[in-house]
């Protein structure tokens, strides 16, 4: 019995040696990977698909999301600095008409007014007017000739607004297009 126990112990001891080598290698490798991962980077790298972002300027931008028959693949990403965001979505094929969807919830959490600049366009011109709607005001981003406009919306202290995206086209569009909008919070 004692001999058998001794043999088992010996076998287990031999089997554990490769495991110990692996652990030893990991003890060397993990700190190296950790240090490389901890290397600070600049804001040029993009955040992937954030649903809500609190900025350094004290404004919060939340992606409303949800399902829509025309608008899909919404993404809100942080780009080129802490106060710049990129909103992208796909506008699907559609019949002539007006389509809109709430896309962003923006809140100014500071005690000072904040101006947010919106600059958006589609990759191809489908002769559609693209607007942003906030309250009873509309802000045109791209007209049916493909001309783009930079729009500014002022947020009073503590004010929260729901931003809608609206697309108007007089004739049907038979293919999808990608829409990209840059959101810049001015200091």
């Amino acid at each position: 019995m004692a001999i058998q126990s001794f043999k088992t112990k010996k076998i287990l001891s031999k089997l554990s040696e490769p495991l110990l080598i692996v652990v030893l290698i990991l003890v060397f490798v993990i700190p190296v990977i950790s240090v490389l991962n901890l290397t600070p980077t600049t804001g040029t790298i993009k955040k992937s698909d954030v649903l809500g972002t609190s900025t350094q300027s004290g404004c919060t931008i939340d992606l409303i999301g949800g399902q829509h028959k025309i608008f899909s693949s919404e993404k809100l990403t942080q780009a080129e600095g802490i106060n710049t965001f990129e909103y992208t979505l796909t506008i699907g094929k559609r019949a002539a008409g007006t389509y809109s969807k709430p896309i962003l919830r923006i809140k100014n959490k500071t005690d000072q007014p904040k101006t947010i600049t919106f600059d958006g366009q589609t990759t191809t011109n489908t002769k559609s007017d693209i607007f942003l709607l906030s309250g009873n005001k509309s802000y045109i981003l791209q007209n049916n000739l493909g001309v783009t406009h930079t729009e500014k919306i002022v947020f009073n202290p503590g004010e929260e607004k729901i931003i809608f995206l609206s697309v108007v086209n007089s004739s049907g569009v038979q293919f999808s297009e990608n829409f990209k909008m840059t959101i810049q919070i001015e200091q």
Partner: protein
Amino acid sequence: MSKLLKRALKIAIWPAIVMIAAKILGILGINALYGLDYYIDNQIQGIYSVQICYSEPSSAILVNSLSDIIMITALALPTFYFTSKTLLYQTSFQNPRTIVKITELNILKWITKKGTTFLQIFIWSSFLITSSAITVAHSIQGNAYNWVGITAIIVGILTIWGTIKTYQLETDKIYPRENIYY
């Protein structure tokens, strides 16, 4: 189970912890000291999903450079302590002048064999050389200042020299070089 492996693992845990902790504390300390604006990014690249980002490239370089220096210093201090302790201990056997100097400096109690082995020096040196290599890479990539890279090279060379010297002294114990005695 191999005693050498168990001992190596036991020794290697400390420099591994020191390396990670020094880098993290270095980053946090520099941020607090200079009051830098940073944000935590959660893009999944590598083994961690969290990354520290700065809006200004100069801030990222500053933090990376100083945290690298803190990491190297945290690893270099114990490594150089173990190496110099062993070197002085071994040299004192062969050179009476060393004993006289040690006595004059009143560090006789400090120069002991206790708690220092070649394996320990080798493992700590390995971590220090790795850290130096990472810092040099950061410097070459433009993520750290040039002087940080140069410092890392010097530390790396000194570490390699110290390890080789210690190894030489260890082998001398097994195969004594007779020409130094006669």
